[in-house]
C-alpha cells in the first residue's frame, strides 16, 4: 500500500492528540504502529480508516483521498478490527460475516455464504459458524471479526490493538491469525504493543510519541533504532524478569 499524510492534526476537547504529522510510505504491505499509550496511534488509525476526520491535513491511501472521499464508499474498501471484537450479539458467527456481504456489498446470499464458509474453514472456525458470539471465546470472536473484515476483500485492513482485551493464550491464537494475513499478501496496518510480533508480521514500523511520528523505517529499525526515544521504548517493553 501507499500512504501519504500531510500536516495531520487532531484534537479532543482542546487536547492535542496528533500534532502536524507528516509521512510518505510507498509499496509496503504490513505496517506496525508502535509507541507508548497516549502517543496517538489509535487516533491515527481511526483517521486513516475514515472513522474520524482530522481537524486539518490531508490523507492519501493508495489512490483514495480519504479526507475528501465519500466515506460510505471508502468504508466498503477497507476493513477495521477493533480492540473488542464488536461482533453483533444477536447474529451467528456466519451471519455476522454474510450480513455485510449481502446487504452492503450486494452479493447473492449463496455467494456470501460460500465466501464466509471458505474463510471460516481456512481460519479454523468452521465448527463455530452457527454459534452466537457470547458462546465462543474472546480469541475466537476476535478471529471471527478479523474474518468479517477480510471477507469484503478490502484494500487494507486496520487492526487497533486487536489483542489488548485478551489473555496471553488467546492473544497468541489471534496473532497467529494475523500472521496469516501476511502469508496472504494482504495489506494491513496494526497498532500493537507486541514488538516481537511486529518483527514477524510487519515490513515497516512507525514509532510515535506525544502525537508525533518520531521514527519510521523498515522493520530492522527495531533492532538498530536511530533515535534514543525508540531505543528507550524498546528497552522498556522488552524487559526480562
Amino acid at each position, binding site marked *: 500500500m501507499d500512504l501519504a499524510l500531510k500536516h495531520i492534526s487532531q484534537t479532543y476537547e482542546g487536547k492535542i492528540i496528533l500534532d502536524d504529522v507528516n509521512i510518505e510510505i510507498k509499496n509496503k504491505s504490513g505496517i506496525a504502529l508502535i509507541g507508548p499509550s497516549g502517543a496517538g496511534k489509535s487516533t491515527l488509525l481511526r483517521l486513516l*480508516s*475514515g*472513522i474520524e476526520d482530522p481537524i486539518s491535513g490531508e490523507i492519501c491511501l493508495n489512490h483514495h483521498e480519504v479526507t475528501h472521499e465519500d466515506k*460510505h464508499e471508502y*468504508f*466498503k474498501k*477497507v476493513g*477495521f478490527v*477493533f480492540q*473488542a471484537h*464488536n*461482533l*453483533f*450479539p*444477536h447474529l451467528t458467527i456466519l451471519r455476522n460475516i454474510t*450480513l*455485510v456481504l449481502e*446487504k*452492503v*456489498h450486494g452479493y447473492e446470499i449463496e455467494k456470501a455464504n460460500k465466501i464466509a464458509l471458505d474463510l471460516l474453514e481456512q481460519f479454523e472456525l468452521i465448527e463455530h459458524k452457527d454459534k*452466537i*458470539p*457470547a458462546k465462543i471465546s474472546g480469541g475466537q470472536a476476535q478471529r471471527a471479526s478479523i474474518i*468479517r473484515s477480510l471477507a469484503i476483500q478490502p484494500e487494507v485492513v486496520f487492526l487497533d490493538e486487536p489483542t489488548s482485551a485478551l489473555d496471553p493464550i488467546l492473544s497468541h491464537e489471534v496473532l497467529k491469525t494475523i500472521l496469516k494475513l501476511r502469508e496472504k499478501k494482504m495489506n494491513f496496518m496494526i497498532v500493537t504493543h507486541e514488538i516481537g510480533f511486529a518483527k514477524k508480521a510487519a515490513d515497516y514500523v512507525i514509532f510515535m510519541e506525544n502525537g508525533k511520528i518520531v521514527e519510521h523505517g523498515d522493520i530492522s529499525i527495531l533492532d538498530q533504532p536511530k533515535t534514543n526515544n525508540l531505543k528507550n521504548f524498546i528497552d522498556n517493553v522488552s524487559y526480562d524478569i
Partner: protein
Amino acid sequence: MSTYKALSMKKSKLKHILLALLFYIALVSFIVLSYPGRDNFRIEAVFGYTNILAKGYINTIIISLIVLVLSLLFGFVLYLLSNSKILTFKYISNIFSEVVFGTPTIVFLIVTFYFIAVPLNLTNRFLAGIIGFSLFMGPYMRNAFIGAIKSIDDTQYQAMKVLGFSSYQKYRYIILPQLVKVIIPPMIGNLAIIIKGSSLLNFIGVEELYNQITTIQSRTYAVVEGYLIMFLLYLSITIPLIFLAKYFEKKVASWI
C-alpha cells in the same frame, strides 16, 4: 454424564417447587378452617352472575391491551422527546415523567378524569379511563425504551459505521432485532402492572372486573366470596404473563 446431572438437578428443583406449593396449600387450608364466617360462605351465589363476571373479565383484558398499545406509542414519543437535542422538548418529557412517577395511580386517574376528560366533554368513561391510564403508563414505557437502547453499546455503532451499513440497514438488521428481544420482558412486566392497575378504573366508573364484582357483591351480599373470585381471576391473567416474561428473559440472557 452431564445430561444425567442436568436431569437430576431438574428433579430436585421440581421437588422443591412441590414442597413450596404444599406449604401454600397448608396455609390456605389453615385460613379456610379458621375463617369465622365459613358456615355462611356461599361462593355459588357469585356464579349466578357469570355474565356480569365475564363482561368484567373481558373488559379488563380489552382495556389492558388497548392501554398497552397506546402507552407504548406514547412512551416512544416521550422517549424521542427526552432524547431530543432541543432541550425544551427534553424537559417537557422529563417533567411529565417525574410527575407521573410521583403520583399514585388512583390519584392520577381521578385527576385526569375530573380535570381533563370532564371539561373536554369526554363523558365516555371507558374511553376516558383508557386515555388517562395510557398517559400514566407512558413514562414507564419510556424507561423500558431507554433501557433497551442502552443495551446496544457504542462499539456496535462503530462497527456498523465502518462496515458501511446505511441508516436504514442499521435499524432494520442490527438495532431493531436486538431492541425487540430486549424490550419484550419489561413490556410484559408493564402489561402486568397495567392489568393490576386497571382495577383502579373502577373508581371512575369503568365496568371492568373490579367494578363488575362490586355489582355482584351488592346484589348477593356475597362480599367476601366476590373478593376471593376477584383475587383468583386477576391471578389467572397475571401469572401466565409472569411465566411468559421469564421465558423471554432466559432467551435474551442467552445471547447478551
